[in-house]
């Protein structure tokens, strides 16, 4: 196992598309790091540059102590699981699993041993003589995993390996991957567009947008203290609510205000000069319904979606033309009905305040 390091990696495709603009990252030995971001953010390109399937326009890629920026994939000693699995359709499962070992000249006995061990670990023994076409999606996915495991590589790369599975199998396989990571203690880099997958799997999560890492941190930190507005909006479901506010002062205390919204902060929370424009972010889970007198902002209930364990309500703040929609998640036993006038109160220790232009976190 080895660490993986990206040093100021840029990638511009021949058609002019810029997929990476200065990636700097150290993935530690034994870590499971997840690249997450919307489609087109450059996460797959970043992974493919680690694999050697794309060459960076500038910058360095190192695996272990070795620089391998220009090294072709076959010389990097990494294994990759593709979204489409990319099993060799004309080879049996056994040949699929053994292919990488054969290419690297592993002895026959050891090859058989390792293939049998991997097949055993993944419950593939009975399929070894079949072709990929005769297997179900979930079984093919296991073969793809197996093909990576037998190699015992320096690092594992996963390119959205679960996105072709149905919801139930996905959750199951996710847990299995977690277990596999723990057992092998392997360095893994995992790409997904699904923030839930990223949060549950990663030792650290690298949120990517427009070719740069917006934040690289453990999942809970990314959730609790998003480094900028993009990360705040991308991580967490339902998505964070944003309010564009003015920073003002009242009785020596800082206050955020816009329209009917008025949130007073503690004196210690100075975020710059009064009059500055800031963006307030509040997660739906951090909003309570209260009486209008003690509320930070009055609102009208628009739609109620009971989810069983909790209730998602869509609210309208201000008028339909000028105001904005807000989503809140409240306990299922809360009393609310459509068109009620309610008050919203934001949990003070869970406020996210961003600079209005740089969109960087201020508090």
């Amino acid at each position, binding site marked *: 196992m080895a660490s993986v390091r990206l040093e100021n990696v840029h990638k511009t495709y021949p058609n002019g598309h810029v997929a990476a603009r200065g990636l700097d990252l150290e993935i530690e030995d034994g870590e499971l790091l997840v690249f997450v971001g919307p489609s087109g953010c450059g996460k797959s390109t970043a992974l493919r540059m680690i694999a050697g*399937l794309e060459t960076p326009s500038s910058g360095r890629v190192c695996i272990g102590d070795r620089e391998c920026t220009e090294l072709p994939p076959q010389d990097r000693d990494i294994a990759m699981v593709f979204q489409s699995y990319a099993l060799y359709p004309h080879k049996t499962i056994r040949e699929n699993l053994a*292919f990488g070992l054969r*290419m690297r000249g592993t002895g026959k006995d050891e090859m058989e041993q390792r293939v049998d061990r991997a097949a055993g670990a993944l419950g593939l023994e009975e399929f070894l003589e079949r072709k990929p076409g005769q297997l179900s999606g979930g079984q093919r996915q296991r073969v793809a995993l197996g093909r990576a495991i037998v190699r015992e590589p320096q690092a594992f790369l996963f390119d959205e390996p679960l996105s072709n599975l149905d919801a139930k199998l996905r959750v199951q396989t996710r847990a299995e991957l977690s277990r596999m990571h723990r057992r092998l203690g392997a360095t893994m880099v995992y790409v997904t567009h699904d923030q839930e997958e990223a949060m549950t799997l990663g030792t650290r999560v690298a949120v990517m947008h427009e070719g740069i890492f917006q934040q690289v941190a453990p999942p809970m930190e990314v959730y609790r203290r998003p480094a900028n507005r993009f990360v705040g909006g991308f991580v967490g479901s339902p998505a964070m609510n944003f309010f564009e506010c003015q920073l003002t002062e009242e009785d020596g205390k800082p206050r955020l205000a816009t329209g009917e919204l008025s949130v007073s902060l503690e004196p210690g929370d100075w975020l710059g000069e009064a009059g500055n424009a800031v963006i307030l972010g509040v997660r739906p889970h951090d909003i309570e319904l209260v009486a209008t007198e003690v509320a930070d902002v009055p609102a009208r209930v628009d739609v109620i979606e009971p989810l069983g364990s909790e209730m998602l309500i869509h609210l309208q703040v201000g008028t339909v033309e000028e105001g904005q929609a807000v989503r809140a998640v409240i306990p299922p036993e809360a009393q609310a009905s459509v068109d009620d006038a309610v008050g919203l109160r934001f949990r003070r220790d869970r406020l996210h305040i961003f600079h209005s232009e740089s969109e960087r976190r201020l508090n």
Partner: protein
Amino acid sequence: MSGWRKWLPIGVVGLLVLATAFPFYWAIVSSLTPEARLFEAPSLLPTNLVLDHYRALFDERNFWIPIRNSLVVAGTTTVLCVSVGALCAYALARLDFRFKGVVLGFILAVTMFPQISIVSPLYLLLRELRLINTYPGLVLPYLTFAMPLTVWLLVGFFRQLPRELEEAAMVDGASRLRAFREIILPLALPGLATTAILTFVYSWNEFLFALSFTLGPERQTVPVAIALFRGQYQVPWGQILAAAVVATAPVAALVLAFQRRIVQGLTAGAVKG
């Protein structure tokens, strides 16, 4: 469903089969009929079958020689065409290099010349190279015509194969050529078989170049030999038809043997799977 609706398609297909197969049937029957009876009122069902024409073909006319020539020329052309063409097509389908479109267009443009218009320049060229009346003198011109078709067919074929398969192979430790050999070639087998057969049939049947670039029977191919059967005073129909049957047999056998692969090749990509 009423009766005629059910039988109409079968009837149409039957007619079609009859129309295509009848000339072959007639050629086979005629080639087995004694010369004297060929010009009598023909009957659909032959009565007196003899092998005279075939015997004459091999005993008197040494038909082995043109068959050998054709096998050598068509076989060499096919092997060269498919092996070189496959590498070329793979490069065009997968590698990034400049002027790829231009190269593809150029390859196609070569086939646009009418064959008859390049016979004389090619003759002069081959004479300079001292290749008139040799096997290479036929293989080389055939290659120029068969290669573009092969390349175009195979480029289409390789493009359909998912890129990830090679990428997976390369991550697994295979070099690009190894990945090509181990993964791409086996998967492209239907396409390779299709192009191989098309090339073989083309070179086997080619007449104009074969007539122009050979001088004597020792290098003449089957079509040329058959065309030169006719003498000054008579046309030996029986022998011509016998030769036609003999010449068609290997091609027909080849096509039948690879029939499934060809159909796969021609329809590949129509449906996933």
